[in-house]
C-alpha cells in the first residue's frame, strides 16, 4: 500500500534552529532514508509557506492568493511517499523522523485502483 507521510511542524522553530541543530535533523532524515530505503518511493522538503500560492476557481474565475490555504501554527514542511505492507509499518518508520518528536507525522493511505 502507498502511504503518504506528511511532516508537520512549527515553521518559526525550524527557522530558529542553529546550523548544528539543523544538521542533526537532516542526519535523522538520512538515517530514516537508509532504514526505509526499500520502502521509500519519493520525498521532498518544501520551501517556507511564505512561498506558497493557493489557487481556486469560482464561477469560472481563477482566484490566486499568496500563502497556504489555511493559516495554522503547524505547517507542512515536507513529505515522504512510502510503499509499505501496512499502516503499522509506515508508523514505525515515521517514528524515526526528528519531526515526530517536535511536531507530528500524518499518515494518509493512497487509493488503490479498484478492480473493474
Amino acid at each position, binding site marked *: 500500500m*502507498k502511504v*503518504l507521510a*506528511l511532516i*508537520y511542524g512549527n515553521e518559526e522553530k525550524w527557522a530558529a534552529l542553529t546550523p548544528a541543530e539543523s544538521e542533526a535533523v537532516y542526519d535523522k532524515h538520512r538515517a530514516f532514508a537508509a532504514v526505509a530505503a526499500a520502502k521509500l518511493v*519519493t520525498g*521532498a*522538503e*518544501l*520551501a517556507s*509557506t511564505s*512561498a*506558497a*500560492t*493557493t*489557487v*481556486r*476557481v*469560482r464561477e469560472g474565475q*481563477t482566484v*490566486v492568493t499568496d500563502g*497556504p*490555504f*489555511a493559516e*495554522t501554527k*503547524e505547517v*507542512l514542511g515536507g*513529505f515522504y*511517499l512510502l510503499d509499505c505492507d501496512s*499502516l503499522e509499518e*509506515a*508508523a*514505525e518508520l*515515521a*517514528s524515526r523522523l526528528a519531526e*515526530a*518528536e517536535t511536531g*507530528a*507525522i*500524518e*499518515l*494518509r*493511505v*493512497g*487509493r488503490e485502483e*479498484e478492480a473493474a
Partner: protein
Amino acid sequence: MKYLFLLNNSAEQWDEWRSLSRAERHERREESLPRWNDLFGWMSEQGIDVSGLELEDPANARVVRVQDGETLVTDGPYVETKELLGGYFLADCKDLDQAIELAERVPVADKGSVEIRPLVTH
C-alpha cells in the same frame, strides 16, 4: 522548478463523498474523468513531468508522534481545517505562472483549492 500541488477538497465534499454508495462513487469518477484527462493531456503537451497520488478519506488518517521515546499513534487528520487534502501532484514546471496554470486546470480547484508549494533543492 519543482512544485508540490496539494489538492484540497472542502469538508462538505468529503461528507458528501462518504454518503455515496460504491456505484455512485464510480459514476462520479466516470463523470469527472474527461476533465482529469484534459489536465493530463495539457501537462503532456507542455512537457511537464508529473507524479501524484489520490488519497483515501482523511478520516482514516493516523498521526504519529514521539514523546519521551514513546511512539503515540492517534486517529484522524493532524490539522482540522475546512479543506482537507485529497491528493497531490509533484510536477516540474517552468515557473510559478505555469504552476498556477496547472493548478487552475485541476478539477478540485472548483470547489476546494490547490496549494502550490515550491520544493527546496539542496
